[in-house]
């Protein structure tokens, strides 16, 4: 989970960036809701789904990550971060942001990452969705701690969560959850995914959050290839497409692209990396769209933001996405696929 994107200043400390400052002020002063009218691209209103959103509770975030997040809140909210975070992570606030960005729906992630970003249980996600069932969907997850003893019960819990109609896929984050991408002991997860026809979203690339694993077997999507090949009936969504958030570089993006080129069941989701904090020059995000087009992968790209982050983030990310697609000469058809078509196709949702 990344509640707030940041960029290091010259002294290496994360700093909230200028556009976010005004977003904070404007949204606090005037509110951020607009009527959900759609995503404007090439003078057409398109339907768009944000497949990467977070909810949760401040108390279920480890202290080190709480400090990291709080240091990115503007003063004086940094003094009472829990209150602001809880409000931002609520269903009401998420839907407000969807409206502000012209997005039809959003997908909220369950997370079981006590090492790093914290825990948002499947039950919490289901409860969040229930507050706005026509606007929110969810991805289920499971604990992988103590796997040798608890795998059976955890897999059963995952299976039960996927029985809910609104839980349409599985979220995994090897770097946050501390398990290797190439460890066959966890492949039963993909078996369940295939049985439910539930796509699996996997975090790829390093993460700036305290307590995350940086080693290659936990971040480099090439370590997923064995699983991708073994489970052709399961769809693997490579989240953040291997982006290096620490150095604001493409990282192992080409590895993700290569996997998508060679395997039909691989999809690409460029969330978070397109924000002003993660791509300050604005060059990396369009480059990803451009490369995907060059490799004929417009039908594999899926839109996600990694919000809600800060007030107005979803709208800001949508706007930067529009600019990136235009820069990469995305046609209307390409944009439609990216914004909702590919998502609805692989998640089996009717249009």
């Amino acid at each position, binding site marked *: 989970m990344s509640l707030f994107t940041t960029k290091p200043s010259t002294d290496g400390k994360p700093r909230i960036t200028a556009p976010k400052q005004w977003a904070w002020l404007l949204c606090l002063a005037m509110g951020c809701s607009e009527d959900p009218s759609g995503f404007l691209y090439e003078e057409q209103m398109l339907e768009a789904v944000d497949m990467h959103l977070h909810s949760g509770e401040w108390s279920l975030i480890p202290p080190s990550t709480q400090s990291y997040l709080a240091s990115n809140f503007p003063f*004086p909210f940094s003094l009472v971060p829990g209150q602001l975070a809880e409000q931002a992570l609520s269903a009401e606030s998420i839907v407000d942001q969807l409206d502000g960005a012209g997005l039809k729906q959003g997908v909220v992630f369950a997370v079981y990452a006590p090492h790093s970003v914290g825990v948002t249980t499947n039950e919490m996600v289901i409860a969040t969705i229930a507050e706005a069932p026509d606007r929110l969907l969810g991805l289920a997850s499971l604990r992988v701690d103590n796997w040798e003893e608890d795998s059976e019960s955890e897999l059963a819990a995952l299976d039960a969560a996927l029985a809910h109609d609104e839980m349409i896929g599985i979220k995994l984050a090897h770097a946050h959850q501390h398990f290797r991408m190439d460890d066959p002991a966890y492949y039963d997860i993909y078996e369940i995914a295939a049985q439910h026809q539930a796509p699996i979203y996997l975090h790829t690339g390093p993460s700036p959050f305290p307590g995350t694993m940086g080693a290659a077997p936990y971040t480099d999507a090439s370590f997923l290839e064995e699983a991708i090949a073994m489970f052709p009936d399961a769809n693997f969504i490579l989240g953040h497409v291997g982006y290096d958030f620490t150095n604001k570089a493409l990282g192992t993006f080409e590895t993700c692209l290569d996997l998508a080129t060679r395997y039909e069941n691989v999809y690409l989701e460029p969330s978070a990396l397109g924000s002003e904090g993660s791509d300050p020059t604005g060059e990396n995000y369009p480059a990803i769209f451009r490369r995907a087009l060059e490799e004929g992968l417009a039908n594999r790209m899926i839109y996600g933001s990694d919000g809600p982050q800060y007030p107005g983030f979803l709208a800001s990310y949508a706007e930067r996405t529009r600019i990136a697609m235009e820069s990469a000469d995305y046609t209307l058809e390409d944009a439609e696929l990216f914004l909702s078509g590919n998502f609805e196709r692989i998640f089996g949702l009717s249009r």
Partner: protein
Amino acid sequence: MKWLTAILLLALPLQAEADSRSKISQGATEWTAKGGFAWSGVAARYGVSPRVATLAEVETALFVRWEGRAGLQIQWLDSEAWALDTTLALGAVRQESTVSRQGPQASIVVRISKTGNVEPYLAIHNREFLSMTSTQVLSEEDTTTRWETELLHARGGTLGVVFPTTKHFMVDIGLQMGSMDSAFAIPSFFTAVHWRPSK
């Protein structure tokens, strides 16, 4: 415009004979209580000479961050039209929260006001805060403490207006913008009451 007119109308009938907010007479004492978002606090000033006053202040942001300071205010200009003063102060910061901070702080405030019954003013501030964090290393031989420091600043300005309500009381309303701990801060607003028991 309407609210500005209301303030002026409110102030006019209460022609106070108080000093301007900026200047305080020699031998006079002023007490201040301030409340608002995010800062609250109390302060005191004492005029040691016609142009110099000592001051002490304690303020808190949401009762989580506490700052105290003491210093000197020097009146450079006190005419019928304008007043200009500078306040230099030393103090300390203590913040116990998810992000904790502590350390000494030096500040300077330059304030210009349009003197009159109603005094609009602009105050520019710069506070340099030396944030100090300590680490204690317990080895077999002994326990050593090492300190790391980081210089942070709070820079910005306050736009406000002071008007007297009685002979001894003045009301001060202000909006403060700027940075805090070298990062963007949400603007704050306050209302303060200044009390001068005697001139």
